[in-house]
């Protein structure tokens, strides 16, 4: 649910990074934080455990510049990936404008990816969204891992609606901005259609 403030000429969009535990959601937004112009980024808020696992969410506000005279601001959130934090994941999806699903390319994590997409579908539905229609981007992360499954095979397993699919190595920044850009494009085009 986009928030458009005509008085201050601002538009705020919420993008949620979803995916199984340790797939690299936080790494994505940490990389964006490190690369972003300090004047354009807000504080990176991480509600994490002592072992740096996401407990509730990470949050990064980004000022992107202007479109048609409106300041565009993205609010990036990650969910906690671990299975038992499902109640928190559901809450974070509230009012989201777009989803970036971060898949872990390693063979051993394929089942976790599939389960996480199913979980996303359920949680979106409970928030009144449809996974088949909401702006949605699939990122194939950890492409540099030796046990990474081939792209065609992952596509067969995880891609279900011809969504943009981007290969990434988030800890090196590869594909991180392209993923965000694909999501931004979908969300802003959605506004055009609205």
């Amino acid at each position, binding site marked *: 649910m986009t928030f458009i403030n005509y008085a201050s000429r601002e538009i705020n969009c919420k993008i949620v990074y979803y995916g199984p535990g340790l797939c690299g959601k936080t790494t994505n937004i940490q990389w964006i934080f490190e690369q972003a112009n300090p004047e354009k980024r807000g504080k990176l808020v991480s509600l994490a455990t002592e072992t740096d696992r996401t407990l509730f969410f990470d949050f990064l506000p980004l000022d992107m510049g202007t479109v048609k005279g409106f300041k565009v601001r993205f609010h990036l959130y990650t969910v906690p990936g671990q299975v038992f934090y499902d109640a928190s994941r559901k809450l974070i999806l509230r*009012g989201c404008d777009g989803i970036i699903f971060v898949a872990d390319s390693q063979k051993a994590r394929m089942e976790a990816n599939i389960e996480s997409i199913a979980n996303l579908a359920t949680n979106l539905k409970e928030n009144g*969204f449809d996974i088949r229609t909401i702006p949605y981007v699939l990122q194939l992360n950890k492409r540099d891992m030796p046990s990474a499954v081939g792209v065609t095979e992952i596509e067969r397993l995880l891609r279900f609606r011809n969504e943009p699919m981007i290969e990434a190595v988030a800890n090196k920044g590869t594909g991180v901005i392209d993923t965000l850009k694909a999501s931004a494009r979908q969300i802003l085009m959605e506004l055009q259609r609205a």
Partner: protein
Amino acid sequence: MAKLDLMLFEEEYTLLTEIINRLEKDASAKVVFLVDKNGQQIAAAGDVKSIDATSLASLTAGNVAATDGLAKLIGEKEFSLLFHEGEKDNLHISIVGKRGILVVIFDQNSSLALVRLRVKKASKELQEIFDQVENRAQRESDSGSRFESPFSEITDEDIDRLFGD
């Protein structure tokens, strides 16, 4: 889309800002924020510069969402009020209607009782404005004669520019 987009126009924004400015004075508060339940700041009053408002909005919404979850777990509809007491500053968080959260930060120059009293009155007024916003959006959506969005002519180039390409 699950819900209609929240669109705020000049006059509604002015009214909301007037109400929270008044609340900030009447409650002898330091800062008052109006935030939406998705974590976006709508309006602010008082010594706003002293606080990272964006993070505050996001964390408040997270806090309210988590508390909502707790309420449902024990069979309550919601906890409409949260209060955090600090050594110097205190945080009073209350729900306004379906989509608003009112955050009042105050110190020893005020009291919980006064803040509660003033918040109650302001909430009613804010609720009326939110209802107006919602009704307008609903009318426009029903009649199909929606306000012409400035984004109707957005192009690929506009989006590329955002990313500095």
